[in-house]
């Protein structure tokens, strides 16, 4: 096993934290935020980077990525060069009418923004964390549980996007956030985002994650993205959140999302992962902190090559009468590895909980694997909970039926993969986004991959 000292990145982040703690690097940040950073960094030092001996990382071995050297991305602004523009264009969703925001290595390019929504406060996190009135969103004294990458992000984050939707505001159009990651040397980028939907507000966000010129125009530089997003959905508010992950080779993408739902709020998450990035680890944690909330989680992961795609979800039913439904589907091509871990935790007080979970996988590559693990922990007695997990191959009957109509074997397989994904894609409400996802699927499925 590697000790922390064997991991070049470990030394880099320790030095990085020391630099950051030095006198004015943290600027006008509140003392509580500084304390939060300090304790998060101590937790990271205790936990280190996760290994397969940690239960949450049992099937996700990142040792090979930790052998590489990375530099911490600083606060310097990355120029919006030609390759960044090209990446942004690739991430655009045809026919989508949205407010488009460009973030390069986590830094919002304000100068680039066109029309902005009314009733929505948009700031860079660099600005927000210096504002005493907003610093409360970055201090998390109550949550001392985070470890590994999440703790590292809390300790070292510098920028990201702060969104706050006023009470009762219903922006006309969704916000399309295009995240472009780029570097001319190996970089660790740690964006932090905080989004707040106040009472009866509505927020629709589509995030597209891409890399510029796979990863750089220069060639072999790698990017490790360790991002953390906190979303607070206040009473009677609605948040619709779509994530499209299409970064290129050389990307290690670790995305942590924590959602806190208040009374009668609604949160929908649609997560799509496509071939490209060598490592994708999504941690999606939904904390149902008050009664009568509704949550829908839909996921589709399409993995190819040597790719490792891990989706860890947690639905934490803390209060009574909340509803959650989760459907994740995976297609594993070539030698890819998939991991699904779906945890549903129903607290003793959370009576009348309805919690459903389903994970289905199509394992196509002869050397592809999937580890699927539903985890239900239920401490209340008056609940309805169910879960299911399947792993399968193509139906021979269906393949023959299609071929008997003149359709080639490859096309038939493509149709069947699309059909498999359909249960998730049909849930997308915006037709432009749905078409975009279907197009991405078909881009990867003329089955040269099998």
């Amino acid at each position, binding site marked *: 096993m590697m000790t922390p000292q064997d991991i070049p990145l470990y030394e880099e982040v320790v030095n990085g934290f020391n630099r950051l703690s030095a006198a004015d690097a943290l600027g006008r940040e509140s003392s509580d935020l500084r304390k939060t950073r300090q304790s998060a960094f101590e937790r990271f030092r205790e936990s280190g980077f996760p290994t397969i001996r940690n239960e949450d990382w049992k099937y996700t071995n990142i040792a090979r990525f930790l052998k590489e050297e990375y530099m911490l991305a600083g606060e310097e602004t990355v120029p919006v060069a030609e390759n960044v523009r090209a990446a942004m264009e690739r991430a655009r969703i045809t026919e989508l009418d949205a407010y488009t925001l460009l973030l390069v290595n986590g830094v919002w390019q304000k100068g680039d923004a066109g029309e902005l929504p009314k009733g929505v406060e948009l700031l860079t996190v660099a600005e927000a964390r210096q504002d005493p009135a907003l610093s409360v969103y970055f201090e998390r004294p109550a949550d001392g549980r985070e470890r590994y990458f999440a703790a590292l992000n809390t300790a070292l984050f510098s920028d990201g996007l702060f969104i706050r939707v006023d009470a009762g505001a219903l922006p006309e159009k969704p916000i399309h956030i295009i995240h472009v990651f780029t570097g001319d040397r190996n970089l660790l980028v740690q964006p932090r985002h905080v989004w707040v939907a106040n009472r009866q507000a509505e927020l629709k966000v589509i995030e597209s994650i891409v890399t510029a010129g796979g990863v750089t125009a220069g060639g072999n530089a790698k990017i490790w993205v360790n991002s953390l997003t906190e979303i607070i959905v206040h009473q009677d508010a609605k948040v619709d959140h779509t994530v499209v992950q299409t970064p290129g080779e050389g990307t290690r993408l670790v995305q942590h999302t924590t959602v806190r739902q208040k009374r009668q709020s609604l949160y929908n998450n649609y997560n799509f992962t496509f071939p490209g990035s060598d490592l994708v680890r999504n941690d999606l944690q939904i904390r149902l902190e008050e009664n009568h909330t509704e949550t829908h989680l839909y996921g589709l992961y399409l993995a190819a090559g040597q790719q490792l795609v891990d989706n860890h979800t947690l639905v934490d039913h803390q209060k009574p009468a909340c509803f959650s439904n989760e459907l994740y589907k995976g297609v594993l091509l070539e030698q890819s590895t998939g991991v699904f871990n779906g945890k549903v935790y129903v607290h003793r007080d959370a009576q009348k909980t309805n919690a459903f979970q389903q994970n289905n996988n199509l394992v196509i590559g002869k050397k592809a694997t999937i580890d699927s693990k539903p985890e239900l922990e239920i401490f209340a007695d008056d609940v309805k909970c169910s879960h299911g997990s399947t792993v399968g191959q193509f139906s021979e009957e269906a393949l023959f039926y299609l071929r008997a*109509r003149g*359709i080639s074997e490859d096309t038939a397989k493509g149709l*069947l993969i699309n059909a498999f994904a359909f249960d998730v894609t049909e849930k997308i409400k915006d037709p432009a986004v749905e078409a975009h996802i279907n197009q991405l699927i078909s881009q990867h499925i003329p089955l040269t991959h099998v």
Partner: protein
Amino acid sequence: MLIIKNLHAEVEGKQILKGINLTVRPGEVHAIMGPNGSGKSSLASVLAGKENYEVTEGEVIFQGKNLLEMSPEVRAREGVFLAFQYPIEIPGVSNINFLKTALAEIRTYKGLAPLDAKEFLRLSKEKQKLVEFDAKLVNRSLNEGFSGGEKKRNEIFQLAMLEPVLSILDETDSGLDIDALRIVSKGVNKLRSADNAFVIITHYQRLLEYIVPDFVHVLYNGRIVKSGTKELALELEDKGYDWLKEEAHENAPTI
């Protein structure tokens, strides 16, 4: 058009077809009847190219080409169509996209340009009308949630769209009520021409009242034991299959 010579086939080591001989010419309708387990559906599957059947002896020549060497999709593109006894439900594949894909691949194989959206729509409308297929079903997922009758009618709709040379109807009448049977038969009759041929596999004579065959063959124990005209079907309806079974045993070669 189709010449089957001494066709032997097995599935999982079990001999199912034991020497089938059959010749089908353009414009003809052949009915293949026989008791359960005689090999009727197996013959259909072997002709369509189902992979779990292994041909151990004999040959099948379709329009001068060796059919058995072709993959299922090439057989379809050459003009063989199997209307399935149990059409598969494929949720998520829309009926119309499926047909568009199939037709495009068949046309490409024949060196024809694919139909544009407008032409395809026109063709689809025309064929829906011809076989009285509900327009609502056209846009649904392939066979998903269709009733038994709707699935069979969808097979005939596909047949109409793809315009095969040789159509094999595998117990298309099973599970159909009398109205559905009439509609399906009417569709088939409209599609009959001097250039194409039909092989109709059925258990009952009922279907043959609507689609009148030129020839009737009785399959028993993997062989065609009797061939005749449509009167043979009536005789079978009357007397059942037992007399033929006895006859077949008497005529079987002694070892």
